[in-house]
């Protein structure tokens, strides 16, 4: 179990431009099909669905016609100082790998859901049901992420398998697997976004575009003041969106 803040040589991060997200949900669908999340017949009960990537609708709280709407895709923040890791009684989740992706090992998880209680972002989901694919549809299960039985917690892992694939491709090509070029490793959601609202890369590598983007004046993180040090940055030019990134008092500056 890791103690407080962990620093690694590489830091995988996401930058999401809220001003571009149209809320279509393609990222949610891509995540599900990539990571073997079984479809559910009644998905309107949001307390039971598994949505590692989830898109929220934000409102500016004003009346028509000053009303505005924005969409915020939320995956796992892969916090630098994760709340979920210290509370796991069996170390099924840990932040111990270069790159900073918080791991979630399903066979080790006992399903106590303490990590879910600890996570302030609602990024973690509990498998209430055994995954059931309609007859034949289990043939579309990918080799990338193992299938989980009911009773364990799961969450976004930045499509970690794609990092492994990128490293292997680099090794075969005789290149350095620990120094991947920008774009060699991209999660499914970032790749599929029809608008191109998301960017992914090593926040510490100046050659990756997320390096500059995360340092932009328009970038902010959710609930920053909790000191979770998330690795997901959001960008917006709108103040009302930025203000929803934390629990600001009416007179506080965002």
């Amino acid at each position, binding site marked *: 179990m890791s103690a407080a803040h962990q620093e690694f040589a590489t830091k995988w991060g996401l*930058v999401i431009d809220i*001003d*571009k*997200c*149209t*809320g*279509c*949900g*393609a990222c949610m*669908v*891509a995540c599900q*099909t990539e990571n*073997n999340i079984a479809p559910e*017949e009644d*998905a*309107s*009960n*949001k307390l039971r669905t*598994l*949505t590692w990537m989830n*898109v929220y*609708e934000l*409102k500016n709280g004003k*009346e*028509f*016609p000053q*009303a*505005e*709407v*924005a*969409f915020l895709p939320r995956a796992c923040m892969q916090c630098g100082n994760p709340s979920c890791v210290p509370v796991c009684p069996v170390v099924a989740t840990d932040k111990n790998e270069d790159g900073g992706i918080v791991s979630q090992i399903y*066979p080790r998880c006992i399903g106590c859901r303490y990590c879910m209680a600890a996570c302030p972002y609602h990024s973690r989901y509990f498998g209430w049901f*055994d*995954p059931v*694919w*309609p007859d*034949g*549809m*289990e*043939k*579309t*299960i*990918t*080799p990338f992420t193992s*299938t*989980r039985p009911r009773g364990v917690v799961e969450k976004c892992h930045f499509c970690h398998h794609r990092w492994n*694939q990128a490293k292997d491709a680099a090794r075969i090509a005789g290149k350095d697997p620990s120094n991947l070029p920008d774009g060699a490793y991209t999660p*499914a959601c970032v*790749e*599929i976004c*029809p*608008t*191109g*609202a998301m960017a992914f890369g090593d926040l510490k590598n100046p050659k990756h*575009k997320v390096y*500059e*983007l995360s340092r*932009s004046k*328009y970038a902010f993180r959710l609930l920053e003041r909790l000191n979770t040090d998330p690795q997901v940055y959001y*960008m917006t030019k709108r103040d009302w969106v930025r203000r929803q990134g934390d629990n600001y008092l009416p007179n506080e500056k965002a």
Partner: protein
Amino acid sequence: MGLDRRAFIGLVAGGAVGTLFTPIPWKLADDAAIWSQNWSWIPRVPRGEVTYATTASKLCPSGTGLKVALAGGKPVTVYGNPEHPLSQGGVSPIGASEVYMLYSPARVRTPMRKVGGKFEPITWEQAQTELMAKCKAAGNKAACISGDVGGTAGEVLSAFLAKIGSAAMYAMPGEAGPAAAGFKLMGGQGRVGYDIDNADCVLILGSDIFEGSGVSVRNRKAFCASRPLGKDQTAKFAYAGPVRNHTGAVCDSWIPVATPHLGAFALGVAWHLLKAGAVADAADMADFKKLVEANYSPDKVSKLTGVSPEVLAAVAKGLSAAKAPLIIPGSEMGQGAGAGSFIAGMSLNLLLGRMNKPGGVMALPELPAVFPGAETPSEILARDLPGYLKNVGDGKTAAPEVLFVYAANPAYGLPESAAMAKALEKIPFKVSFASFMDETAAMCDLILPNSLTLERYDDVVTPYGSAFCSLTLVKPLVAPIFDTKTTADFILDTAKKMNLALGHDSLEKALKEKAAVVAKSDGFVAKEAMPWDVLAGKPKPAFDAATLWKELDAGRAWVKVGQVAQTGLSFAAKILAALKPAAAELMLAGMSQQRTGTAATGLPAQCLTAIPDTDLKAGASIVRLNAATAKKYGLSQGSGVTLSGAGGSCPAKAHISENVMTGVVAVPLGFGHTAFDAFSKGKGDNFLKIMAATPEAGTDMTVWAGSEVKIA
């Protein structure tokens, strides 16, 4: 000698202690733990080499190229093809469903014939025999409703219908229909497309271009390119429509206008442009000017639409000041707007001189047909399907004897469903080529299931809204999983057997011919240069016609940047003069979202989680209205409400949203299926059924966007 108690205990104790020195307890515990993790009913992941193959999506109207991941040769998931101009890596939720929908429980697995109200499986030979007999008996009294008229497979149906002597080929309604009809009425030649990449000021009139309308993925990529992350944006976008929907959410401003008033709004903007001296080279320029000055002054437009005179003036000013303004007309729900509304919006492009200019409206040529006798997509799209069916239902038009339904679900996807069902019931013999058991297929006498996208050859040709012509190959990545056939091949075979040979033996051969024909027409393969760069002025890359089929097979698109010169384009002032936008107390605005699939796909299983519980909750549809509208009708957050129109009614729950204009109820479309499978059934209601289909004054084209609704 017997074992006494102590000896026995000694033996057992020895055994127990000894067991501790063996692997038994530790191994059993370990293996039992593993056994409990590997229940047999949890599927395993596949083993085998992971490879990638390309094709294009036929389920999604945006025509994206796809990159399919295969494990051990079986497709497992799909991404956008980064090399394809309509995708650039992006895919809509519908395109993302292409792989797993192969195994949708709603799939029709074998040809079916309706006997005594129930379906029974039959062989393809039996089906063909019956179909030929019915066609022979019907002669030329056949009709076809198709959801895919642009591609070569669409040509097959059109050519077949032409060969049996019928002109009743209809397309399911969308944005392309009013555009085709309207542009024709304006004397325009070619198909309209919008060059968003090179525009710097875009006014969107209703059209949900960043969600489901036209080449929505391409549109979004163009939008993204106009605002590089962290830098200044290069284009402004304004959205005029009744709801601040997915498109409106990202645009710089929202101008609330009810859909039936979008035309008036456009002409109100034209009033300002004319005042500033804008002039177009059109025969009826003077008539148009007179008409606008007389009827669309700021006060009149403001009174009708609710848009303030200041906003009207500001919009006009923005367009005039822009170097490359672009106006994109349409409907907020991707269907139901009229040709008149399109013409009014297009008149702004004409006034600003945006026809066939970079960043403006591109009039594209049709690709040459390879099946003689097939009509062009524009001819088919311009026909009014709801109008036709309504007349059939009312007895004003004779019902055809045979109806073919291809890639379409008219029993669900048309307005005034009750009237449409009445019409369909009058047709004695109906054949559906649907891949899924949809509402229309359930009504048909014969279902001849089409193989799905990944199982067949096909093509995607210049989807509506694209600024350039394109041809993309769809190729099979798996053998058909069930007993299905490629409809085009089946029709070609049937036609041959009826001595009406259409010209090619198979769709694959026809596609090769198409590539060969198209290769001669001055295009290129989108590889190093993308068509929008060429539109901007970059030189057209070299093109080796001999390599075209190979490039298409590798997933790349053939594209052509070139427009049809306009010789007789006018404002259709006479039609504009006849426009009479309806004013209703409460209007419907449809929210057409990709996550609810299309009428022909139903709700794709993996898209259900993307549907928020503010659209659907526990099987009940949720409609949106703002606080002012709600107050007027005594509603509050969560109230039950019954919406009625067109002789039908839909129960729903109310959700207060200030992103809906006053006097409008926004309703989510794609729900209320009564067919398909458990993923689609029993979820909400189909609001198309309460949308009244009425003729548009001036064009007589059926319109239903923004129709009147009553709260019971």
